[in-house]
């Protein structure tokens, strides 16, 4: 009985699970599961519903790495199903003309608790509303509007991982996968406008990111009359939705028949804008304060515009101005020394052809011109120097073509002695304008023929034979003639100013 009593007492005071307790625990358990499920859903990061906004996404299974404007992102990308690719490229946003900063709280969505502020950040693009993003949320806010993303940004390994395909259209960029598995995120050429200002036809091209110096190459053809511009490193925009098909982007005006755009080269991308003309015209590039804008004036042949770089077919000016001058023209390489090889041609042959044309132009301007070689003969560097020094030449110019890889391009002129600097500046200025290529400027280097000659001496590298586009140009006799004219004009300008 005692025992029974004792047992009865225990039954009263020992905590046992009653239906209310069980309900409480079940509630806690379900709440936990619900919380986990809710968070898991949010951070699963993929948002298939956004596919209706972005259209078809290519097969992402083969993506091996990510490149932003030609710069590879070192961290390997993360794939979110077949929705999007996450990559930590915040440090490369500047290549796309954007930057990431902490969020300005005035841009936070309404009702965001202050405790959540640190989850947000913003991507800034000049003259546009910032893109407000939240870690773990597949939604962007732009100008107060909600934009669904295919995947949410993540914070992992101390870096912010951004969804490439989702952000590309918001950045005005293109996202395309190269055959080698690299996902390329590139700035784009956005639009072309043709209009008339005070009787002058003007063409402006807007891009999604600032155009780096020397990244627009220009060219002309007279038959049919065309002027074209290659935007190196820029993909097709024009709402092309990552397409690379050529299209007419402006119906033209007056002397411009139409304007076309197409992807001239892929991976690395180059977008070409072609102005189809009704008659040959002269083009002048107008410097613009906004580096996302490229402006061009179309002029009648023979017109000049202050401050503009002109592409023209004019003859060198200053006939007779070189009378009494002895100039040594040195065609680089020759004989067994073929110089740099292109895919289709050799440096020594182009150098000789340009040197011969240059000689003709200089003679037409009154100079006494001596060539170190006028055929395919090898002459040593010492022999070239001795030739120039022994003839007491007033000017020495060595003609070469550059070489590096298939992407580097442009024109450069070298000098070594201080009394050669002015000559180099004048030759480079005229040569770069005539070539229509990137102006890589004047440089000093210890090339043998310009180090050991006694007179003002320069070495020109008109273009890169290793660059397929520039090799195609220099294989055209008309283009080689342009280069020769540019050099002759530079020498004439130097003599006029300094001798």
């Amino acid at each position, binding site marked *: 009985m005692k025992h029974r009593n004792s047992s009865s007492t225990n*039954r009263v005071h*020992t905590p*046992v*699970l009653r239906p209310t*307790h*069980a309900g409480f*625990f079940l509630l806690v*358990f379900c709440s*936990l599961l619900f*919380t*986990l499920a809710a*968070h*898991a859903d949010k*951070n699963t990061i993929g948002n298939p519903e956004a596919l209706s906004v972005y259209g078809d996404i290519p097969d992402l299974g083969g993506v091996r790495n990510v490149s932003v404007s*030609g710069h590879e*992102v*070192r961290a390997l990308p993360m794939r979110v199903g077949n929705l999007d690719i996450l990559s*930590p490229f*915040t*440090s490369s946003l500047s290549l796309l003309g954007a930057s*990431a*900063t*902490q*969020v300005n709280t005035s841009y936070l969505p309404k009702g965001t608790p202050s*405790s959540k502020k*640190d*989850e*947000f950040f913003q991507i800034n693009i000049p003259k546009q509303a910032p893109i407000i993003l939240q870690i*773990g949320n597949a939604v962007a806010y732009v100008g107060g509007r909600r934009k669904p993303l295919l995947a949410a940004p993540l*914070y992992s390994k*101390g*870096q*912010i991982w951004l969804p490439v395909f989702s952000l590309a259209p918001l950045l005005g960029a293109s996202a395309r996968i190269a055959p080698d598995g690299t996902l390329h995120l590139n700035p784009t050429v956005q639009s072309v406008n043709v209009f008339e200002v005070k009787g002058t036809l003007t063409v402006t091209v807007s891009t999604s990111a600032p155009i780096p110096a020397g990244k627009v190459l220009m060219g002309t053809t007279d038959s049919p009359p065309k002027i074209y511009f290659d935007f190196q490193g820029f993909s097709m925009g024009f709402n092309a939705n990552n397409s690379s098909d050529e299209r007419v982007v402006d119906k033209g005006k007056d002397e411009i028949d139409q304007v076309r755009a197409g992807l001239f080269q892929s991976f*690395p991308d180059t977008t070409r804008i072609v102005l189809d003309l009704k008659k040959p015209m002269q083009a002048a590039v107008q410097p613009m304060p906004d580096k996302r804008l490229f402006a061009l004036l179309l002029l009648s042949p023979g017109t000049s515009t202050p401050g503009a770089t002109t592409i023209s077919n004019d003859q060198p000016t200053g006939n007779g101005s070189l009378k009494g001058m002895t100039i040594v023209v040195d065609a680089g390489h020759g004989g067994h*020394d073929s*110089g*740099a*090889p292109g895919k289709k041609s050799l*440096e020594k042959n182009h150098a000789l052809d340009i040197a011969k044309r240059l000689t003709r132009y200089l003679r037409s301007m009154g100079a006494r011109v001596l060539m170190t070689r006028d055929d395919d003969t090898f002459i040593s*560097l010492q022999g070239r120097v001795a030739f120039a020094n022994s003839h007491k030449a007033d000017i020495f110019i060595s003609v*070469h*073509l*550059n*070489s*590096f*890889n298939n*992407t*580097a391009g442009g024109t*450069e002129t070298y000098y070594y002695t201080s009394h050669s600097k002015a000559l180099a500046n004048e030759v480079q200025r005229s040569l770069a304008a005539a070539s229509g290529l990137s102006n890589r400027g004047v*440089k*000093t*280097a*210890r*090339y*043998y*023929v310009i180090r050991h000659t006694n007179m003002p001496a320069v*070495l020109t*590298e008109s273009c*890169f034979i*290793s660059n397929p586009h520039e090799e195609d140009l220099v294989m055209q006799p008309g283009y080689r003639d342009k280069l020769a004219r540019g050099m002759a004009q530079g020498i004439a300008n130097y003599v006029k100013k300094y001798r």
Partner: protein
Amino acid sequence: MTQDNKSNFRPLPFLLMIVVLIALAAGGWWVKTHSTDTLNTAGITTPSTGQTGIDATQHELTLYLPNNNAMLEKSSVAAPTGTASDFVSQAKAAIAVMQEKSPDDFPSGTQLLDVKTGGDGTAVLNFNAKFTDGQFWQGSARTNMTIYSIVNTITAISADDFQAQQVQFQVEGKPIEVLGEFDAHDPLEPDMQWVDQH
């Protein structure tokens, strides 16, 4: 008594307690691995470059390697583990790392045979004969990129025993006259006109 104990045992509360504990543990693990609340947005403005950290016990090498636009880009890398702190060891390590990272910027088969230091701040790099392969030294850009990637890198080495002011190239122990069109007879000082400033 046994009967009483049996009658007091209720499996449901224990089961629920275990489930709750498991759920709590799972929740804790999930929060730890997925938490974004701890995000420090200060990191956004100074994002990681993605470079791997450099072990404090290793030497840092400053490299100047050519980019696709025929300009040099400056970067820092950790010297290979075991590289001694003296100048010669670091110079050899720098050339080895450059050749590994950027093999196309050296003539094929190039080997650095020896490095010597002179009292006038000249570092003498002695390469094998492959270094002067005439097919390689074509074009000013090609020539300048290779020459000044080496010269700028070697003169950037920070060592207690020697600081190079200029670099002299040799092949099989003899001075080089020219590399392509380039007059390489005299020692070369670093030249920053080739370094991409963007």
